[in-house]
């Protein structure tokens, strides 16, 4: 009596890949229109821009010292500038014709000091109050000038002094520090996005469970397809956001001239992005499995808190590692799955991680992701159709279907 099924020209069976794509597509299109998400993303981008502007503001405070000179000549200006170079400040020499005008300029704070009769027997420096840097500067310059004059008076012909050759033992130290700072900023972004998108995954799982739509979904697909679609969809969105921030950050840093070595900067940023992908896969699977144990958004906190502690620990250690990338703590934790995305990223950026160390950390991370996806997927599948109270981990693992 098996009559032919009605014709369905429009229907072809979905392949697992297409199923995952459909789920991922829904996640992206729903999330991307969510106001909370858009506002959150905008805030993150603004935060990055704010940090850049802050950096620029700090750096632009490079000191120039304005010195008024009365009765000086080119040699005096030259000596002041040379002395300024030695002291690490840029000197701007302002010539004044009479002492009164120079005095007013000092009083008004237009110049930091006024040097009177620099070539005379008794040069005088007018300052508003204590001399400070200007005093050292002027003193040095006047001494130099006096020395030159006396030597030439004595008929000593000065030979050009030999140029000192500088040999840096760790030429990258500065660049290492800079890269570590970039990595640290990157790790903070990575941490925020990990938690944010992990949270999205968890909320999505509970939403499907609490609205019971999951039963309808599982009538058409396997739990792993639903899980991977959700993780991949939100992951792509997270990666896109990470890249947007990275591009804005790098472009901003280059435009504002915050960093010394653009190549190094881009390398560090790419490292952080790569670690984000691994870290996200790790935490998203954990968060999804944890979230599947509860049926209400209110209960989410209780199951997520333990899982949230790990990235917090990772961030704290990463902050530590930025200051001391060679510490044992940083070295050891950079191999611990879940911590490595943050700690290893900083160590790598600081130039303190050997290639094999990175390879081992990545490998450990990949293996743990595989294990977590497997175990987490089982918990997820076992707990998904059990609504009501909180499902015990053991029951979820034991459930066959």
């Amino acid at each position, binding site marked *: *009596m*098996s*009559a032919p*099924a*009605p014709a*369905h020209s*429009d*229907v*072809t*069976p*979905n392949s697992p890949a297409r*199923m995952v794509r*459909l789920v991922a597509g*829904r996640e992206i299109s*729903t999330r991307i229109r969510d106001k909370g998400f858009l506002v959150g993303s905008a805030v993150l981008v603004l935060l990055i821009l704010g940090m850049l502007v802050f950096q620029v503001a700090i750096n632009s405070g490079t000191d120039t010292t304005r010195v008024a000179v009365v009765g000086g000549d080119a040699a005096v200006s030259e000596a002041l500038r040379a002395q300024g170079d030695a002291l690490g400040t840029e000197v701007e020499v302002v010539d004044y014709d009479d002492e009164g005008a120079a005095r007013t300029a000092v009083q008004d704070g237009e110049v930091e000091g006024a040097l009177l009769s620099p070539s005379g027997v008794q040069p005088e420096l007018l300052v508003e109050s204590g001399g400070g840097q200007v005093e050292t500067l002027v003193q040095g310059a006047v001494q130099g000038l006096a020395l030159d004059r006396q030597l030439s008076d004595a008929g000593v012909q000065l030979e050009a002094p030999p140029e000192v050759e500088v040999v840096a033992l760790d030429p990258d130290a500065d660049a290492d520090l800079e890269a570590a700072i970039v990595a640290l900023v990157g790790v903070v972004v990575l941490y925020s996005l990990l938690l944010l998108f992990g949270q999205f995954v968890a909320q999505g799982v509970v*939403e*499907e469970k609490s*609205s*019971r*739509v*999951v*039963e*309808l*979904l*599982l*009538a*058409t*697909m*396997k739990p792993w397809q639903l899980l991977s679609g959700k993780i991949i969809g939100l992951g792509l969105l997270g990666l896109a956001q990470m890249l947007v921030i990275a591009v804005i950050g790098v472009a901003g840093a280059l435009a504002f001239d915050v960093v010394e070595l653009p190549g190094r900067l881009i390398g560090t940023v790419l490292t952080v992005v790569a670690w984000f992908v691994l870290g996200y896969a790790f935490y998203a699977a954990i968060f999804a499995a944890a979230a599947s144990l509860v049926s209400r958004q209110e209960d989410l906190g209780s199951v997520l808190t333990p899982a949230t502690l790990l990235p917090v620990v990772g961030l704290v250690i990463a902050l530590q590692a930025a200051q001391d990338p060679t510490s044992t703590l940083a070295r050891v934790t950079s191999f611990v799955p879940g911590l490595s995305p943050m700690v290893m990223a900083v160590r790598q950026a600081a130039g303190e991680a050997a290639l094999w160390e990175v390879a081992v950390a990545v490998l450990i991370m990949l293996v743990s992701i595989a294990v977590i996806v497997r175990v987490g997927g089982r918990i997820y599948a076992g707990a998904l*159709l059990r*609504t009501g109270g909180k499902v015990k981990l053991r029951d979820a693992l034991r459930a*066959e*279907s």
Partner: protein
Amino acid sequence: MLEIDGLVKAYGSNQVLKGVSFSVAPGQMFGFCGSNGAGKTTTMRIAMGLARADAGEVRWTGRPVDDAVRRRIGYMPEERGLYPKMKVGEQLTYFARLHGMDAAPAARAAEHWAERLGLGERRNDKVEKLSLGNQQRVQLAAALVSEPDVLILDEPFSGLDPVGVDSLAEALLDQCRRGVPVVFSSHQLDLVERLCDAVGILARGSIVASGTVDELRSGAVGRQLRVVAPDAPDDWAAALPGVRVVSAQRGDTVLELAPGADDQQVLAAALATGRVAHFAWREPTLVELFRDAVTATPAVAA
């Protein structure tokens, strides 16, 4: 033919299903009745692959139902479930695509079914903004949108007003006319009696009665025959083979015939007493049948 064959399922020590079997022909509307906790939902969830049977299987066109077949089944779970924050139209399109439709036909089907079930103007509303009755319609539309080969609906009529019941019933009858076997569970037995070609009554984990409503009636324990013969003595039928007198009052007799007893012989005996004013089987309602089946010993399967 959709065949449910010997399903057994236990949750711990609780034996929920003890060998549930029935079959539904294409174009047949099958009403699945049973008391609360009898195992209706478990049976349907097993058919949808949401629970695993300890024994037995579900077959469609002779082959065990697998994931590919399940995507051709329209399902409405007992616990209604939709994405609350998704718009009606998008939601229906999504479910159509999950069942294997391409984007464009899925959108067309979603539009069609929303229109058809009176949700045309609510297509761009989020589901959570709809009344419960309208959410129920969306749920049904989600089951129908992929033009399924089989429909399995758990309590589709619960919570609907009479107008909603009528429009849902009409939609289901349409599906039957398309040749789709429809299985639905319900507590509203009058509705089942009105709509269904076949009925299965589940009690304590097994089917205690199944067949068409007429078959159930004829197979019912103690078929009752009412004969009004005004001139007959009270004991006119007492001697007839296989006949028990239930009540006799001034020529109005109710007889219970054992299976195989000849009703024509009863008629002849009645006519022998004189005028016969009424001679008819008493039609037990489905409610009576249900009550009998559920309270009787489980041995009385049809």
